[in-house]
């Protein structure tokens, strides 16, 4: 099963290699990894998506917590959270299919960010399923280039 982990770390040199080294060294799998600053300049947050059975995910979480520079690990899979990824796609477009591509763009509330005679560059954000659906639908037009940000995530506010 896919899990999304939110990992709060000390913002210091080497912290990324400590985390990525843990995954390669122990044979865990990283699907995407995203790092960014927080309001506290001393702290960064990494969002890691990974796959594995319960026992492996438990080890990954524990091993991450064991790293001295890791402050907090939360498995967002277990709680209500918002997951978003940004993807940019350069798609082949001609007069015959441009309208259809734009319909897909419309339906998924994507944005066209660049246009040329034979290409459209599309920006989309969404959760994993939505991004997969968009990529799936656009594949038949011919995707020339794709760039994905990896997942960022946040726990939802508790209600009431």
């Amino acid at each position, binding site marked *: 099963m896919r899990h999304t982990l939110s990992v709060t770390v000390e913002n210091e040199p080497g912290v990324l290699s400590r985390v990525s080294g843990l995954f390669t060294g122990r044979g865990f799998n990283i699907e995407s990894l995203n790092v960014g600053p927080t309001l506290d300049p001393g702290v960064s947050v990494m969002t890691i998506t990974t796959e594995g059975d319960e026992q492996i995910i438990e080890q990954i979480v524990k091993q991450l917590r064991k790293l001295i520079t*890791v402050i907090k690990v939360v498995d967002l899979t277990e709680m209500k959270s918002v997951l978003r990824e940004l993807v940019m796609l350069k798609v082949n477009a001609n007069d015959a299919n441009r309208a259809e591509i734009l319909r897909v763009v419309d339906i998924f509330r994507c944005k066209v960010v660049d246009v040329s005679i034979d290409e459209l560059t599309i920006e989309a954000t969404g959760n994993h399923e939505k991004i997969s659906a968009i990529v799936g639908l656009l594949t038949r037009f011919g995707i020339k280039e794709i760039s994905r940000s990896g997942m960022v995530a946040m726990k939802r506010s508790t209600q009431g």
Partner: protein
Amino acid sequence: MELTGAQILLECLKREGVEVLFGFPGGAVIDIYNELPNSSIKHVLVRHEQGAIHAADGFARASGKVGVCLVTSGPGATNTVTGIATAYMDSIPVVILTGQVPTPLIGNDAFQEVDIVGITRPCTKHNYLVKDIRELAHVIRQAFYLAKSGRPGPVLVDLPKDVMQVKTEFIWPEDVKMRSYNPNYKPHAGQIRKVANLIREAERPLIYAGGGVITSKGHEALTWLAQKLHIPVTATLMGLGCFPGDDPLWLGMLGMHGTYAANMAVNNADLVLAVGARFDDRVTGKVSTFAPMAKLVHIDIDPTSIQKNVSVHVPLVADCRLALEALKEEMEPTLEDYDFEGGHMSWVTKVQVWGKEHPLTYKQSETTIKPQYVVEKLYELTNGDAIIATEVGQNQMWAAQFYKFKRPNTFLSSGGLGTMGYGFPAAIGAQFACPGKMVIDVAGDGSIQMNIQEMATSVCNNLGVKIVILNNGYLGMVRQWQELFYNRNYCETCMDAQPDFVKLAEAYGATGFRITEVGDVERILKQALETPGTVIVDVRVEREENVYPMVPAGASLTDMLLV
């Protein structure tokens, strides 16, 4: 007062209680060496940096304190890597201080520059590069705190030359606070009650103790529980010494070269209390058949050890000593209400019968010297009171099997990494930790040649370390596998082209003995142990003797090859 980085470093080491530093100088650490004569810390000059790190490790294992080594940048630093990994695998507290090129040159492929922080990231508990002198005191404080707290381990501090040269106001950080590191020592009361109830219900309980009992000094509480509740005890290689080896409840080591009684007990127990042990594959054999009838309780300070290799019924993240003491407190008031002795009688008897059916044994010979016999004699001659370091291979297993360890911190052996060349420098470190004790390295002829250069260190410090080489002229443990599993294809394991170990001892200014006759073993060993200073005893043992019992790798613990 303003101090240089080198002065601050040495002042911090002193305040951390460091008495001995094992090291080897070079350009990047020359500023530290320049200050050393002004410090009260004793420096031991080794002959190879691997010797320094193993000596620091041996010092730590024998004393329970943090061992420290100091080496230069580049090759000095890389020479310690094997020893760092050795300490890491066995959770030993050491601090490694490495010199580094000046900060402006870092990343430029400067002379003797190596990214030692990058290299050792996966084999240290944590590591640091100190780029700013204002961080130095904090980092040193954190390094010692990390090394010895929680699950101990090696911590490396990389010290650029310019940071050692500049000056700053020295402020000693009174305490160490780290928001991201808070090991949990205290056992959960509810879990303790659960364990106590499992013990009360169990008919065939077994304690499986590991290195964590030694680290936490939990041996006394463990011994109390075992003896009062009549629970047989087995231990891993790393746990040897946590329970008296001459107690009737002692089953010997478990695992690949464990005793028949210990492995049978694991297989038949209905409750296994794993205390400070990590279910290593050398211990469990085939995991799916490990302790098939037992409820498993696992006490360990490191959450990652729990549920890693086997799934346990009652996990308990805590310090072993505190957990065992809490258990004792829980059990003591109701001790009278339960008849543990009667209740466990048939189980204890059964286990002891296994011990009698297949004890640790060997076929004594009139003509050749059996290595096991040599270890037995060492045990007798030292009354079981020596500190025994070992190399790796058959010599290590025979030492573990035939020396009955009575006290913790008396068996020093590279378990997790299995580093040949560990034993002798570790013995040197142990001798510095315990100057009054007899320290013996039980060695193999192959392993001893991996750090033999430390003879000079031992001799010039007038150390009384005794090296007893169980000389079979083979890389014996590998040869044993070739014999049993590779059709006797002894490819590259015959080491009969050897130095003359007696002359070698003499060349270093030490004393050498050779034993070739069974009848001489006791007499010459005694003489060797009584000889002051560093001694090598070259014992020519039966060349193709094997270590038994043996559970082939990946087989179930009950599939033992016996003598």
